[in-house]
């Protein structure tokens, strides 16, 4: 039931763009995105509910394709502060709001 994230890791130069994908084999109610820096708590970025909505957080945006049960996170004009591990958490129906997290995508932004 764990969603699959890709890529596992990405190295960017400041200002470059990247896309992180999150796919599930289950019908999803929502997708949550978090970023975790080393040794710190995961920090919430955004929630997307079924319906194909798109959200944004600074220059980080995301989409949710309900038909494909897939969400994508877009890092635009990356900044050094974007470095960290990004996790998607997927929620299926009747799951008490429980999230199944992907293995994470490590993002390194270099000067």
């Amino acid at each position, binding site marked *: 039931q764990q969603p699959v994230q890709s890529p596992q890791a990405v190295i960017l130069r400041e200002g470059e763009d990247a896309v992180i994908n999150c796919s599930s084999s289950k019908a999803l109610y929502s997708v949550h995105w978090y970023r975790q820096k080393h040794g*710190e708590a995961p920090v919430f970025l955004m929630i997307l509910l079924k319906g194909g909505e798109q959200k944004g957080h600074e220059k980080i945006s995301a989409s949710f394709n309900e038909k494909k049960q897939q969400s994508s996170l877009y890092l635009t004009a990356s900044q050094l502060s974007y470095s960290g591990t990004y996790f998607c958490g997927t929620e299926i129906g009747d*799951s008490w*709001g429980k999230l*199944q*997290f992907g293995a994470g995508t490590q993002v390194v932004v270099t000067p």
Partner: protein
Amino acid sequence: GAGVSQSPSNKVTEKGKDVELRCDPISGHTALYWYRQSLGQGLEFLIYFQGNSAPDKSGLPSDRFSAERTGGSVSTLTIQRTQQEDSAVYLCASTNRGGQGRNIQYFGAGTRLSVL
């Protein structure tokens, strides 16, 4: 409190000993989740509380693991007869409603457990 608080931040124990990990959620948050994060891995769901009840314990790895929540607030995760494979970071998250919907989970910094 201002955020989710977990204690201790680090715990080193010997194989076979029992440990207790504590989570103090954000004041007023009714739902509380425990996750486990092994080195370089994602977050593995352990148990969910709504108030003092645990409707979903499906993620607890074995009967050595148990958790309780009292007063709808503080939760304790207990691991009995610890094994080396229990070594991980244990994260707690709380949210103000629980169930389906726009329930942002706020995480604590975790307890890093090392079993020697």
